[in-house]
């Protein structure tokens, strides 16, 4: 698209990936943004909205392959459209992150509380009263998820992004499933609490870890308070030995909970969560080390001195 052709406004042709038929065009002005190109797609395709549209350009090195357009301002609209063609993909129904987080956390909170308060409905009236440890477990569990919900809406800073709707069902199955399993056996009339020392030690570990985890979240949020896209090396005592102290303290909080309550599914839940957080921590740690040449060498990803 030569810029100097008389009478022709600069525009980019939009195609579906893998198709040769042009869907539509979008005029490129000085202030055109990617979302305008997405809106052009949505005008032609019923049922689509910008969050569902992903933009791609042809991969110059590999025929038939595409490269996703990086919307975090790494590529300018002009650069992406320099070949005159741009491609889109329908990502499927989307849902907002905060919506997913809310339901992921609200479910377990309700499930444990309901299991605790309706023990008689579940196991009959001829059962002993809930023990102190069982009550404590309920408070800890409910408190943990209440904290998470508050953090989602008042602390965490993330881009107003969306994720595929399927993730809602996948994530809720995981959280709600484990919540039901842990709650059932901890609230059970034949639940056997561990020794008092375990209960005390577990509780203190839980509370201390939750506080440290919260402090980590606040520190990370402060980095993005003024600039939501800021990417810096986090500092502070919690970060002295770790890239992701939030994941470390989350695991320690569950460890405390399990020392206090000692249930098979409690430990399984902690293990499953840890494995996922390990994967996330390693990725973030790698990214930090790649981005910052002076990244502190002593820091590990998720367990100090180990990994």
């Amino acid at each position, binding site marked *: 698209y030569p810029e100097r052709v008389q009478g022709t406004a600069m525009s980019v042709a939009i195609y579906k990936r893998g198709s040769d038929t042009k869907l539509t065009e979008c005029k490129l002005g000085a202030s055109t943004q990617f979302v305008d190109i997405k809106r052009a797609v949505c005008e032609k395709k019923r049922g689509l909205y910008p969050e569902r549209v992903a933009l791609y350009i042809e991969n110059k090195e590999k025929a038939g392959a595409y490269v996703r357009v990086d919307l975090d301002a790494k590529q300018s609209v002009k650069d992406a459209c320099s070949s005159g063609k741009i491609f889109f993909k329908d990502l499927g129904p989307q849902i907002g992150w905060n919506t997913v987080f809310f339901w992921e956390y609200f479910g377990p909170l309700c499930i444990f509380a309901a299991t605790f308060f309706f023990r008689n409905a579940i196991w009959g009236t001829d059962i002993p009263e809930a023990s102190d440890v069982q009550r404590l477990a309920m408070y800890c569990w409910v408190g943990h998820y209440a904290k998470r919900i508050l953090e989602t809406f008042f602390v965490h800073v993330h881009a107003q992004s969306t994720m595929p709707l399927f993730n809602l069902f996948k994530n809720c199955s995981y959280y709600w499933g484990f919540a039901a399993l842990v709650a059932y056996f901890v609230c059970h009339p*034949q639940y056997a609490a*561990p020794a008092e020392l375990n209960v005390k030690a577990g509780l203190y570990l839980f509370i201390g870890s939750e506080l440290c985890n919260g402090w980590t979240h606040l520190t990370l949020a402060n980095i993005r308070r003024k600039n939501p896209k800021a990417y810096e090396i986090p500092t502070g005592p919690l970060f002295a030995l770790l890239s992701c102290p939030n994941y470390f303290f989350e695991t320690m909080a569950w460890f405390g909970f399990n020392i206090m309550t000692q*249930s098979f599914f409690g430990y399984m839940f902690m293990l499953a969560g840890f494995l996922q957080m390990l994967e996330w921590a390693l990725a973030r740690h790698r990214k930090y080390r790649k981005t910052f040449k002076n990244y502190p060498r002593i820091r590990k990803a998720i367990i100090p001195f180990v990994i």
Partner: protein
Amino acid sequence: KAAVMGIINVYLVAYNVCMAAGWSFLLYTTAQTLFLDGKPEQLWERTEWHLKVFQTGAVLELLHSLLGFVKSPFSRALLQIFSRLAALWVVVDTNYAQANAASRNEWTDNFFAMLMLAWCTVEVIRYSFYGLNILGSVPSFLNWMRYSAFLILYPIGVTGEVGSLLHAMPFFDQGQCPPALPACNYSMPNSFNVAYSMSSLAKFFLFMYIPGLPFLYLQMLGERRRKLGGGARKQKKN
């Protein structure tokens, strides 16, 4: 490195050939017992041990996936093998156990027959496909079979599996354990604060067919579309 790859491929081809041979024998025996002799009640006696050896041998595929010999995802292999082993060693083995001989009826045998027809056919196709794939030449007919046979075999196989499971459920509800798992019930109170019963595990297993079958079926349909394309019929003629 190329030498190591070569050895791995020789091993894999040998594995697939053995499996294909074993399942071919099972398919032949199944077809003979059901269609030539017309005696489904003899199917278990004739195939029990071969079936147990070749189906259990498939755990090697978990190792192949973990060690990176093959590209398929570990979670998929794990799910598939776990459900097969459960269906065989927990469900069918219980139905045919000595203790339950009195409850055995024509439906025990019919569901087992459906299960066998589906499993044997699918496995012969699958292992032949894998073996020839490593050697680099899969006849287009086999390719078509691999991505089309499941269309009727999945429903037939699942009917056999679920039918067998429903038949076995009363035994589990009474606290019976499968012959291979003498200790399958654990009750509270205990220091792990956990309990399980074959009855509840079996009900969970039954429930998992509801999301499981559509998920696997749709996944295979997607692969079919990609591998055979829109001109699936054209490909078959070629």
